[in-house]
Every structure is written in structure tokens, then in C-alpha cells.
């Protein structure tokens, strides 16, 4: 017994080391992007304020170009609103815009937009997240799509705290989305390989897709994060080649924006997101039968 205690006394530092590493490895192995985002969202209540003020200074220097871009965007939107208003007025069952809220309640309006400012943004990790200055109290909820004011894909909201939210950036090796070449309906799956913050890869694009270097790549429209008719830009084809099995094309896409320089974003909420995903998972779990309602779980 004495010898055992003596032995443990001699190697307790090693034991302690193994124990700490074991716990840390377990935590790391069981962490998902979601737990990571949750931690950031929580600690941001402390760190966020400071990050916010530091970013305020940085933000000041890019105000001019941003203002110009926003003004342009506002002008574009005004035109669209005007066009839609005319269309609405012309149609027989025209509804006044003051009734927008009731339309939303009835499920006739599917998407809602909101502006937010980036207060912290990394691009030099393999799993990058962006922190925004708006949280649940401003109406942000997880799974909102995120784009730049000029319509380039940024990511989607992974977690929210009261005043801040964390976006899983397109520069995150866990991020997956689908995209297509403008003018072609065939869809490829887009992911970041973690190599360059200026490029993402599109795999499994049909070999019949018409593709040329410089072609614009946009969101596929089947995503639940972005409106189908919105054409969220992703980037431009930089190069492409057949994959090893010669069955599809692998495309390298140069991103349409330098994510490190973005400081304002627009959030898009899909009111139907939960309904669609619940229905999909119900079908996948086999708890949905045709003709019947979704079985509550």
C-alpha cells in the first residue's frame, strides 16, 4: 500500500496531465459547430461590448465606400418596391402594403430582411464564425440566411444570445450549400476546403453543365436559407476539372467578396424554415404517412 502511494506520488503530474488531456479531448471530440457557436454567443455578453467598440473604430474607416454601396442597394430596392407596388395595384386582388403584417400572419409573405453589423470576424481558422451585433431581442433567430448588402452569400445564423448572434461563415469547413452556374439549372454542392479564404469548391456538378472560366455562380434556390428567386451570388468559376472517377466536374470558385472586409450584412428569415425542416425530418424518420398529418413527437 505504501509503495502504491509512493508510486502515485511520483507520477501524479503525469496522471493529472493525462486526466486534463482526456477531458479536453472528450470535450473537443463531442463539440459541434453548434456548441462552439453557443459558447461564443454566451461569452460575447462579456467580450462583445469590447469587441463592439474596437470594431466601431475599424468601421469608421470603411464608412464611405459602404455608404455608397448601401445607397446603391437602397436605390435598387426602391425600384423593385415601386415595380411590385404597380403590379399589386394592377392586379384584381390588390392588397394594400399596410396589410403586410396580416399577410405575414397568414403565411403569404415567406421572407423577412434585417440589417446587422459585424463585430467580430475570423477568416484564418478552419472553422470560422462571424459575430453580429443583433440577437434574439432584435428578432434574430438561428438558421437565418446571411448575405452582404450587395447580395453575396456570407453564411447562416448558428446561435443567438440576447444581444448578439453567431454566424457560421461560408469559410467554415462544416458549411455546406448548393449552387449553380448562371444560365444552367444543374446543381453542385459547395464546401470550403480550408485552404484559401478567397476560394470555395463546388463538387459533383454534372458533366453536362455548361461551364466556362469566369462564369458567375449563384445559390441554387433549393436552399431553405435564401429565397429561390433572390440569386444570392457566391463567386466566379476560376478553374474546373473532371473528378477522379470522371463522373462529375469539380469547380474552384473565387468568392465574389473578401469576407474579411465585410462589415455590414443583411439577415433573411424564412418563416417556413421550421415547417419545411420538420416535415422533411418526419418523412426521413418514417413518422409521416401520406394522407395523414405529421405525427407529433
Amino acid at each position, binding site marked *: 500500500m505504501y509503495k502504491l502511494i509512493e508510486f502515485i506520488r511520483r507520477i501524479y503530474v503525469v496522471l493529472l496531465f493525462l486526466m486534463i488531456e482526456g477531458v479536453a*479531448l472528450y470535450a473537443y471530440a463531442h*463539440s459541434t459547430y453548434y456548441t462552439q457557436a453557443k459558447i461564443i454567443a454566451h461569452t460575447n455578453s462579456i467580450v462583445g461590448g469590447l469587441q463592439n467598440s474596437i470594431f466601431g473604430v475599424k468601421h469608421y474607416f470603411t464608412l464611405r465606400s459602404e455608404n455608397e454601396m448601401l445607397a446603391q442597394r437602397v436605390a435598387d430596392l426602391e425600384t423593385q418596391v415601386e415595380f411590385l407596388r404597380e403590379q399589386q395595384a394592377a392586379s384584381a386582388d390588390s392588397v394594400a402594403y399596410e396589410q403586410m403584417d396580416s399577410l405575414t400572419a397568414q403565411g403569404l409573405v415567406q421572407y423577412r430582411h434585417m440589417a446587422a453589423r459585424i463585430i*467580430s470576424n475570423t477568416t*484564418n481558422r478552419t472553422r470560422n464564425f462571424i459575430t453580429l451585433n443583433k440577437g434574439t431581442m432584435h428578432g434574430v433567430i438561428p438558421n437565418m440566411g446571411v448575405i452582404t448588402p450587395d447580395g453575396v452569400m456570407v453564411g447562416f445564423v448558428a446561435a443567438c444570445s440576447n444581444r448578439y448572434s453567431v454566424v457560421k461563415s461560408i469559410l467554415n469547413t462544416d458549411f455546406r450549400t448548393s449552387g449553380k452556374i448562371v444560365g444552367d439549372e444543374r446543381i453542385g454542392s459547395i464546401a470550403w476546403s*480550408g485552404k484559401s479564404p478567397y476560394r470555395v469548391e463546388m463538387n459533383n456538378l454534372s458533366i453536362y453543365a455548361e461551364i466556362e472560366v469566369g462564369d458567375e455562380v449563384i445559390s441554387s434556390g433549393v436552399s431553405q436559407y435564401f429565397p429561390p428567386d433572390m440569386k444570392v451570388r457566391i463567386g466566379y468559376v476560376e478553374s474546373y476539372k473532371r473528378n477522379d472517377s470522371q463522373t462529375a466536374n469539380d469547380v474552384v470558385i473565387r468568392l465574389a467578396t473578401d469576407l474579411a472586409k465585410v462589415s455590414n450584412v443583411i439577415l433573411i428569415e424564412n418563416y417556413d424554415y421550421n415547417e419545411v425542416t420538420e416535415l422533411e425530418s418526419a418523412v426521413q424518420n418514417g413518422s409521416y404517412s401520406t394522407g395523414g398529418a405529421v405525427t407529433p413527437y
Partner: protein
Amino acid sequence: MQRYLSYIGMFIGVVLLQIFLLDNISLGIYFHPLIYVAFVIILPLDMRPVWVLLLSAVLGLTMDMMTGMCGLNVIATTATGFARSLIIGFTSGLNTGVDDTIPALYRLPQKNLLTYIIMMILLHSAIYFIMESLSMAHLFHTLLRVIVSDVFSVIIVWYIVKLFIEKILNK
């Protein structure tokens, strides 16, 4: 007492420097200097290993909480803290003194101090980047990240250590 306060100050200093300055510099995927390990480097060389281990774990945990990494910083920092005594033995062994005692940080010759800093940073960032990518497919790419980031880390940590020895320890 003042000595403890200066170490606490260094702890807070390197954590803030890492989070608010270096993590906010975006110069591409290869540039990610991890300088907070400077705190483990400046701990007294003759400190008991169990304390070094515990303080490294606390430092790693703090960084994890601040950056949402769920254990990655603890893994890298604790391993570095654990290997520290071996690295110190190796670097001070390069310059065999008259007795076998470990010299204080400020008594290490410049060359040995630099070797010590390089080995600590290299070990820490190698574990960090390999665990972060968790893929052998990008091994070359990970090695490049370690090398590029470490060149900057070593330069920054060298000045932090110098500043600590000269201005705070007044040696």
C-alpha cells in the same frame, strides 16, 4: 506579492492581445500567430511541474471560453506546459553550468532563450493546428500554417519575454 501581480497581469495581457488584436488580423489562412503561450514560457523555470500544468490548463480553458473552441486550446496548452520541463532541460543542457541547477529565465543566454521560445511555440502550434484540421489530407498545408504563423509568433513572443524580463522583473 508584486511578483504574483505581474504574472496575473501577463496572463490577462497575452489573452487580450491574442483575442482582440491577433485574432482580428486577417492576412489569410496561413497567418494565425498563437502568442498567448508566452504566459507558460515566462513562468519561473524552477516552478513545480504540477503548477505549470494547472496554470497551462487554466490558460487554455480561458482561451477556449473566449473563442468557443471547446477544448482545443486546453489540449495544446496543457501538452506544452507538460513538456516544458523537458524543453527547459534540453535548452539549459545546451549550456552546462557548473552545478546542475536550472538557471532563471533572465540568466539564460540569448541563444538558449531563443531555442526555448521556438521549441515551446512550435510544439504548441503544431498540436493546435493538427488538432484543428484533424485531417492527414491537408498535412502539407497544416505544416505551412505552423511555419508561417510561428515565424511571427516567435518574433512577438521574443519581445514580450524581453519586455517582461527587463521592465517588469527589472533584470
